C-alpha cells in the first residue's frame, strides 16, 4: 500500500514497539494522577465523615450522602458567596471589555501626540507584580471608604493592561481601509469603534473576557484583602476562611469547592477548544 511508504523510515521494530508501550503506560499513569484528585473531591463531597476515616483508600463512597451539599448552604452564607463571585467576576469582566477596547482603539487607530508614551506606560504596568501595589491600594480603598464593598472589589480591577495589549494587537490587524470607508460615510471615531472594529474583533474580545473571568472567578488574594465580612467574600475567599483553622466536615468543604469550580468546568467541556486557544494566547505575549 502506498500509505506505508511514508511510514517506512519509522522503524517498527520490537524495541520501538516496547518504547511506545512504555510511553503510553507513563502517559496513562499521568492521566490518573491528573484526574483522580478531582474524582476523589467529587466522591468525598458525597461521603460521610465516618466513611471517610474508615476507608481512606477508597474512591467510592460506602453510602452516598447529600449532607455536604446541604451543609454548604447552612454553614456558610453560600448563596451570597456565589452571588458575590458572579457579580465580581461578571461586572468586572464587562467593564474591562468596554474600557480596554476603548483604550485599545485609541492606541491602535487614532493618531495623537503621546500615543507611544501612553502605550509604553500601559505595557510597563504589566511588569509590576500585583503584590507591590497591594498595600497602598488597600490604604487607598480605606480612605475612599471602599473596603468591603462591591466598588472596592470591582473598580481597581476594571481594566487590564494585558487586555488592552491583546485588543490593540487585534485591532491593528483590521484593514485601515474599513475605517476610511466608514469615515467617508461620515462616521466619527466612536461609530467606527462600535460598528466596524468591535464586530470584527469578537474572537479577541472573547479571549479577553474568558481570561479575565477565569482569573477573577478563581482569585483569592484580592477578595481576601478587600473584603472582611463573610457576606462580602467571593467563593475562593469564603472557602479559605471556612477551611482555615479546623475542618469539622470535609464533605461540606469539598462540596463547596465542587460547586465553585462547576461553572468553569461545564464551560470547559462545552467549549474546550476555545479555552485551550484562549490560554495559549497568553503564550503569544
Amino acid at each position: 500500500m502506498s500509505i506505508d511508504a511514508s511510514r517506512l523510515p519509522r522503524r517498527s521494530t520490537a524495541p520501538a514497539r516496547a518504547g511506545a508501550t512504555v510511553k503510553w503506560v507513563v502517559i496513562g499513569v499521568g492521566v490518573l494522577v491528573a484526574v483522580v484528585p478531582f474524582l476523589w473531591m467529587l466522591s468525598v463531597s458525597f461521603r460521610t465523615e465516618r466513611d471517610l476515616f474508615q476507608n481512606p483508600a477508597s474512591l467510592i463512597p460506602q453510602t452516598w450522602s447529600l449532607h455536604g451539599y446541604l451543609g454548604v448552604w447552612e454553614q456558610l452564607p453560600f448563596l451570597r458567596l456565589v452571588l458575590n463571585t458572579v457579580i465580581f467576576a461578571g461586572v468586572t469582566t464587562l467593564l474591562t471589555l468596554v474600557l480596554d477596547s476603548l483604550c485599545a482603539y485609541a492606541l491602535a487607530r487614532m493618531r495623537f501626540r503621546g500615543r507611544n508614551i501612553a502605550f509604553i506606560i500601559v505595557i510597563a504596568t504589566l511588569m509590576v507584580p500585583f503584590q507591590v501595589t497591594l498595600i497602598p491600594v488597600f490604604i487607598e480603598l480605606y480612605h475612599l471608604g471602599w473596603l468591603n464593598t462591591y466598588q472596592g472589589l470591582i473598580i481597581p480591577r476594571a481594566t487590564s493592561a494585558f487586555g488592552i495589549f491583546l485588543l490593540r494587537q487585534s485591532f491593528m490587524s483590521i484593514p485601515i481601509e474599513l475605517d476610511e470607508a466608514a469615515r467617508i460615510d461620515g462616521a466619527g471615531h466612536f461609530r467606527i469603534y462600535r460598528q466596524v472594529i468591535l464586530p470584527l474583533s469578537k474572537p479577541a474580545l472573547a479571549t479577553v473576557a474568558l481570561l479575565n473571568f477565569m482569573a477573577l472567578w478563581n482569585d483569592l488574594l484580592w477578595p481576601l484583602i478587600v473584603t472582611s465580612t463573610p457576606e462580602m467574600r467571593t467563593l475562593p475567599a469564603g472557602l479559605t476562611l471556612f477551611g482555615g483553622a479546623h475542618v469539622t466536615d470535609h464533605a461540606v468543604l469539598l462540596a463547596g469547592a465542587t460547586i465553585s469550580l462547576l461553572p468553569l468546568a461545564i464551560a470547559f467541556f462545552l467549549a474546550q477548544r476555545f479555552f485551550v486557544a484562549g490560554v495559549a494566547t497568553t503564550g503569544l505575549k
Partner: protein
Amino acid sequence: MTVGTPVRVEGGAAPSATRAAPARPRPRRRIRWQPAWLFMAPSLAILGVFVIYPIIVSFWYSLHDWTIGAAVQPFVGLGNYVALTKDPQFWNALVNTLELTVVSVGVLIVLGLALAIGLLRDSVVTKVVRSAFFFPTIVSLTSIGLVWRFLLDPQLGLVAGVSQALGSPAVDWLQSTSLALPAVIFVDIWKNLGFVMIILLGGLKGVPAERFEAGRLDGAGDWQLVRYITLPSIRPTLLFATLILTIQSLQLFDLVYVMTGGGPLFATDTLVTEVFREGFVNYRTGYASAISWVLFALIMLISLIQLRIFRYDDVD
C-alpha cells in the same frame, strides 16, 4: 499620567475657537487627537490610581517605619532593606521561593516538553489525554489547594490510604518541615503541567514537518531529532514558557496559603505569604512594602532578561 487627562479633555473646547478662524491651515489635526484621551481616560485613570501611583507610594512606605493607623511614620531611609538582610525569616522566605521556582519550573519544562512531544499527533486519544492534563489550569488554586491538603492528610487522605493498603506507613506531608515544601512544589507542578504542555504544543505545531522528515532521512534517532531539531526550533516558545512560569512561581500565594499557611514553622513561607503576613496580619506596612520591592526587583530582572533574549532572537 492621570493628571494629564483632564487637561486634554478641557482642550475639547478648542474646536469652537478653531471654527471662528476658518483660514487656519490644518484644523483637522486638532480634532483628531483630542478624543483619543477621552477614549483612554477610564483605563488610564484606573491604571494611574490603582497601579502607577501605588507603586510609587509603596516605595515611599518602604523607606519608612510605616504602620497602618499609627500617628507617626518615622523615615528610616533604607533601614527596612538593611533590616531585611539580617532577617532570617526573610532569607527563609526568599530561599523557599527560589527553591520552589527553580524546581517547579525545571520539572515543568522537562515534563511539559515530553508530554507535548508525546501527544503531538492529533487523534481522539491524544485530545482526551490533553484535556485531562489541561483541566487543572482552569480550576482555582484555592480548590486545588483544599483538595490536595485533604488528599495528603495522614488520617483520611487517599494518598495515605493507598500507601497503608500497600503496607507503608502514612506520612504527614504537610506537617513535616522537610516534606511540606516538596509537597507544595509537587502540587504546583501538577496544576501547571497542562498549561506548559499547551504552550509548548503550540510551538511544536509551528515547526514544519519537513524538518523532521529530513532529519529522519539523514538517519537521526528519536533522541537526536529532539536534541537537534525540536529544541532549536521551539527555542522562543521554550524561553517564553520558562519566563512566564518563573514569574508566576515567584508570586505564588494561593496554594501555600490554602495548603499550609506558610507553615509548619515557616517551612513553606514564600515572599508573597510573608508580604501578606507582615502587611495584613502584623501591620508592618513599611517592612512588607520593602519585601514586595525585593520581589518587584527580582521580577523586573527576569522581565528584562526576557526582553533582551527576545530582541536577541529578532537579530538572529
